[in-house]
């Protein structure tokens, strides 16, 4: 098992003809993802390396009713239309890789997705990988790297950073600890799916025994996860690292969501909330490996 994506993923690539999308599509397929079709208005009828292109999502679904996931590669100004199109056509899982989308567009999409029961990942997400099964997005980049860095196993990984989700899996895999599913929720402050939402999915996933999270300054994503744990929404071990403890206030760091305003968004606040909820928080990122090893060992002994 895994969450969100796996062997049953039938993927649509929206904006398939762009440079990044094209390279990425080839990578996803080479890794084993079932890439069924792509869209690009005006290029319907053509194909990309034998993957058929359609003008609209509806047209694609008509020919390929099995499509259940869409990944968005369109430029920021076209994201809202593209995602609305996917949701309107009945797709229930949409991953937005595009960066720098106006946040009010995203708030509209989030509200609409909620009313339609659609799961939105991102924007500004590098993607999701269920090792050995399926990858959606740029995460891994090359099959050779992906096979080395991501290994099959029982630890879930969630991250606010696209780079650090891969880094985390790399640390885990080197220590012989495999992953069930790893994903980046997106670096923006307004994202469709937050840690707490993912934890609930991991809770239900039998294969996942524990979860690691890379967090950072800004937003209330980590506090939300702490709340979820406290309320019993997630009962498995949770290990976390939070970056940016020396970051100054009101300074934005790269990600749109990485900014401290007042007490809100400080590392200390997040650490306190998570620790209070019973999660383990480590001081250096690579230490997640030792912490998770200990948790897995304890779990094994209980059995």
């Amino acid at each position, binding site marked *: 098992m895994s969450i969100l994506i796996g062997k049953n993923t039938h993927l649509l690539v929206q904006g398939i003809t762009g440079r990044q999308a094209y390279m990425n599509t080839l990578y996803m397929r080479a890794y084993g993802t079932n890439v069924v079709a792509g869209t690009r208005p005006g290029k319907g009828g053509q194909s990309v390396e034998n993957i058929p292109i359609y003008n609209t999502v509806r047209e694609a679904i008509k020919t390929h009713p099995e499509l259940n996931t869409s990944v968005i590669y369109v430029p920021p100004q076209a994201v809202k239309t593209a995602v609305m199109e996917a949701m309107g056509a009945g797709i229930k899982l949409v991953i937005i890789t595009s960066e*720098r989308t106006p946040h*009010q567009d995203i708030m*509209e999409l989030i509200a609409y997705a909620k009313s339609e029961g659609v799961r939105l990942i991102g924007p500004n997400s590098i993607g999701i990988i269920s090792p050995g099964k399926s990858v959606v997005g740029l995460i891994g980049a090359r099959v050779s790297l992906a096979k080395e860095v991501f290994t099959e196993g029982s630890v879930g990984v969630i991250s606010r950073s696209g780079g650090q989700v891969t880094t985390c899996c790399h640390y885990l895999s080197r220590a012989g600890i495999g992953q069930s599913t790893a994903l980046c929720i997106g670096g923006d402050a307004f994202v469709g799916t937050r840690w707490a939402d993912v934890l609930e999915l991991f809770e239900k996933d039998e294969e996942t025994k524990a979860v690691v999270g890379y967090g950072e300054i800004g937003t209330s994503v980590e506090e939300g996860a702490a709340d979820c744990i406290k309320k019993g929404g997630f009962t498995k071990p949770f290990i976390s690292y939070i970056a940016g403890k020396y970051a100054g206030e009101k300074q*934005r760091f*790269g990600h749109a969501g*990485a900014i401290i305003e007042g007490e809100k968004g400080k590392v200390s606040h997040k650490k306190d909330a998570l620790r209070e909820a019973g999660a383990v928080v480590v001081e*250096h990122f690579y230490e997640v490996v030792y912490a998770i090893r200990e948790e897995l060992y304890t779990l094994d002994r209980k059995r």
Partner: protein
Amino acid sequence: MAKLTEFESKKIIKQAGIAVPRGELVSTPRQAEEVTMRIGLPVVLKIQSLYTGRFEKDLIKIVSSVEDLKRTLDYMFDVHCSEIKLQKLLVEEKYIYQNEYYLSVISDDISLSPLILFSENGGIDIEKNSENIVGRPLNILNGVTGEDISFLTNGASVNSDLGDVIKKLYDVYRKMDCCQLEINPLVFSEEKFVALDAKIIIDGDALYRHKELGVQLTEENLNREPTSLEISAAKIDENDHRGTVHIAELDQPLQKKGTRIAINCVGTGVGLSIMDELIEQGYMPANFGDTSGNPTASKLYRAIRLIFSQKDIKGFVFASCVSSQQLDNTARGVIKALKDIYPETGGKPGIPCVFMFRGAWDKDAMLLFKEHGISDSENVIMLGRDSNEYNVACEFDKLYKTRKSVPNNVKNVRV
């Protein structure tokens, strides 16, 4: 994010039909006097600055007599305008009123929706009176409803026109892609609501829809104006959307003092992590640098040139996450920059540098450094996929201490 000045903000809300005081923007004392005569005393003189806390910083003055006006203008133009960069002064009519209200619309990242905030105890002490603020998240698909308005104004002993102001303000928030839109104080005077001060922060990612504002997007620090380095850095991405560059000068002194160094990272996450590790070892990053996505080598070149142009940099750390970026391109950009900064050594840096390349094409990146002879330098340590953020800081510390004890015969060349 792009913060607009009070004058710009008021212009926008006035167009939306919310009353603001009569006022004009001036840049000389003479103009200020002329405007005052037109409006009539008393007037409020407000320096247009993005700094917060203008009252405490004496950037706002109320004057009621001609002598007072002259004296205050002299003071404001001589003292303040030499200290702060913005030399515009807003001369405005003075209102008489009873209560100060607070009204704002913000994008709330907890409810993931627009949030309207209202308080009957507005004014400069709003933060101290925060328990009196009523908040109402809205469904962005529906906008402001009658229920929202009655919830916000429930029990408020104010005129029903307030609902109208709320609706108009929300329309501005939506139309202008605001992250935050605030009127504080909002007062009731002469039978209408008037916005005495206004603040608008626009989503930097939506600026393409608001070209009329002519705002230049820069790396944001909401406490201050962007530095010239940050303005130059923002220009790198302006016409080229292949990958992103974020460079910000970090305010000194930060929480901890240390040896001043420069950094650039591939990925925000690794950047923040490295920053933490370096600071713990006593090295203070002068800047935050993040080159994410899949940038061109030329983008890296420009970023590194800018980062090395900072004064008194004692070392440099470059670190990538386990990245999907084409790190060979990244390396080429860095190498060309080093060659231009240190021409007499063929790119061998004059300060201690640690480079960590991890991810796709990481081995190609390392080979390029070797090929160009840069990794042979005694000032350089190369780290690969088997290292982590903590290692980088330790290795840099070791290198820095070793190099410090060696007489420096390589000139430290700056751009």
